[in-house]
């Protein structure tokens, strides 16, 4: 049996009385483009933080590339790339300086760091911004830089927390091409995003988390078939979009809210 790239068992995180993530068990196969979805506050970012060593789980176990993972698993961290929630940028550096720093923190030698920095900046169309500090970058530029930093060491597993937020259509297309290329070369990508169209286009498998609990997990086709089976006869024949699948699984509360109307808004 093939070793899972990402494996969790009973992953739980509590903040005082609040249980942000509860008993999450999932498995991501190597080479999979895995979408991790959920409404705001469902526990997506908390799960990614635990999977990348930024947050200690209250209970449960995790394994990356078949090895138990914890914050101190430094060798494993070399295999992981992350675009975290806050992007982990250092505002007082230029993009070049920042990528040099990150490359060396991941143990790359100076020559490799320099070469990859240049290639990444050109690929991300940031090479002309070398005089600007990162703090002066637009949000989209910062996202591109964060992604460049996440891949500079050539990770086998990539965790992306909302990587397309604020990125223009041209750059988003470019990033999608890059990520698909990584998948084709055997990397595993764990993606959270609210743009369900991207999930539908890129991901082969999806898990949905709601109120801290995993409520769906499987390939997109499996989820589609599962949701369709709950619909009346005629609607079962329609091909459901990812948005319809998502809303069918977690959207009940949201639909009630939509019934209200803010009449004072012009």
């Amino acid at each position, binding site marked *: 049996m093939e070793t899972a790239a990402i494996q969790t068992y009973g992953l739980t995180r509590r903040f005082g009385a609040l249980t942000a993530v509860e008993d999450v068990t999932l498995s991501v196969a190597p080479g999979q483009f895995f979408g991790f979805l959920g409404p705001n506050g469902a526990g997506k970012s908390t799960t990614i933080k635990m999977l990348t060593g*930024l947050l200690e789980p209250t209970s449960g176990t995790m394994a990356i590339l078949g090895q138990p993972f914890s914050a101190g698993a430094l060798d494993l961290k070399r295999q992981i790339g*992350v675009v975290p929630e806050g992007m982990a940028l250092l505002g007082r550096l230029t993009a070049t*300086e920042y990528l040099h720093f990150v490359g060396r923190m991941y143990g790359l030698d100076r020559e490799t760091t*320099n070469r990859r920095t240049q290639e990444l900046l050109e690929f991300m169309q940031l090479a*002309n911004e*070398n005089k600007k500090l990162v703090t002066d970058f637009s949000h989209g530029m910062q996202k591109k830089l964060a992604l460049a930093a996440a891949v500079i060491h050539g990770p086998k597993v990539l965790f992306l927390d909302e990587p397309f937020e604020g990125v223009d259509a041209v750059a988003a297309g470019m990033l999608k091409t890059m990520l698909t290329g990584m998948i084709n070369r055997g990397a595993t990508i764990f993606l959270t995003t609210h743009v369900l169209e991207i999930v539908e286009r890129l991901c082969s498998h999806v898990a949905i988390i709601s109120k801290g609990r995993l409520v769906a997990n499987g390939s997109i086709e499996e989820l589609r078939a599962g949701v369709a089976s709950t619909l009346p006869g005629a609607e079962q024949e329609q091909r459901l979009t990812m948005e319809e699948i998502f809303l069918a699984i977690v959207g009940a509360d949201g639909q009630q809210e939509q019934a209200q109307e803010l009449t004072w808004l012009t």
Partner: protein
Amino acid sequence: MADLGSAGLSPLGEAAGIHAGGVLGPLARAQYGALARLRWRMFQNSLRSTKGALELGARTVSYVIYAVGGLGIGTGAGFAAYGLASGNQWRFLPILFWVLAFLWQVIPIMLASFQEQFDLGILLRFPVRFGSYLLLYLVFGLVDISTILGCLCCVGIWIGMAFARPDLLLWTTLALAVFAAFNILLVRAVFAWIERWLAQRRTREILGALFMVALLSMQLLNPALYQKRHTGRGNHQQDMEQMKEMKARYSPWLKTANAVQRWLPPGLAAQSLQQTVKQQPMAGLGALGVLSLYALLAGGVLAVRLKSEYRGENLGVAPARDKATPGRSRAAASVAGRDLTNPAGGQMLGGSGPIAAIIEKDLRALMRTLPLLYAMGGPLLMVLVFSTIFLKNGGVQGNVFPLALPVCMVYAQLGFTQVFYNSLGTEGAGIQIYFLSPTPFRTVMLAKNLLHACLFGLVAMVAITLTILRLGIPDLAVVAATAAWLLFSLPCNLTAGNLFSLKMPYRVNPGRITRQRGSQANALLSLLVQLCILAVGAAVFVLGWFLDRMWLAAPVFLILAVGAVYVWRRVMDDVNAIAYERRDALIAMMMKEG
């Protein structure tokens, strides 16, 4: 439909219905009220956590300390004012006002690392009038340490004068009120403009160069003014002759200085009272009027700066001016882009490992981080001030205080408080890299400690050089003891600093000197630790001095240094565990906005 009114929210139509008015109009008043409630709620919410309660305790203690210090200085000022007024020594009154003005302007420089202020920049997204913004800026500034101390001194002078000359009560009140207003406005204007200038690389370099030129100029003046300082101890008659000679030499200078100071704010405040005593109320009123003009000028200079902020200028993102012309071709820009990635041109250190990477990164960030640059550079100015005081007290007799060198070093070290005790404060969201990368946190702290030790060594060398240039070469035993004390105090500070940085960090806004969020608990406790280190140092120095065995101090400090290094190593061994245990709190603190 949602019943927003009953939920405590005002429909937008109602909010829009509040008449805007002026800075005291209905909308402004509603905004002041909202802001006061916000501050109150923030205060209440901060008490929900242990850290918040600790912060409140630290804040209370620190304000009690400031209040006691302020009352002490204020009482002194009161007695001085009483003595001058009752003894009819009005000609010396300007000295009192000059001392007060000096303290008022210098205390913020000394305490820049320990102050926490509310950043009003968050208000700019709301429909706040500029007048309201300015008013709030000044009102929030009233809880500033320098203002509290300065105002307590003014109250002291007022009471002293009231007892000595109750007939001058009205004039005293007026003069002190305008003088206080001038100082409050000036100190804010100076800081606001310094922040602006230091935010740009070009002006930062120019100011740095000016600072160095000023330091060198003072050194050149030094031998000219005090050439007879090292002639040795003379008898009383010789001293008196020397005094007379100096008086004769400097008399024209002093007269000119006196004439000039009369037209400057402290002199004007004193003059308004002097003229009234001389039964010349119109002249007194004139002096008060000119003083008011100075206050208005300071306010205007401040308003000009705040207006830019109000229009949306963000000092945190003030970029270095890009020399690229608009018409520059994309290809040319692309080539320029490659220049920086050139290994020969873009890197500062030779090593390629994480330690070199962190040191290089921190050094770059440091050069672009105002509060740290300011905190490290400011004390050098104070070293000059202290050395001048020692020089004035002992220079004439050729008998400078023998422990002047260590005292100057102490202040140079205080400038590193923020650097040592909040070493992760400028990382912001970037702190996550340390937890994501395969570099152990111990390596991160080791790199930071190495850099900070080198920087401290550099500043200490500059401070020692400045002190020696000002005061001459002290006794060799004192130099050795001072160097040994630095070897002891450095690992002590690094050890405590590592623990504080991990357990009590706060985010530093790299673009601001003032209006930082800060942490009173960190500031107070770090000061406490430093005082303990100083107390140990002082005890050894003073013992050596009294017993006339100063040569013993250096070995004692070296033994203590060995112990301090051992403790530092032990703490470094625990750094990984502490950092990983507290990583979510550390990340949350560094990503905190506003």
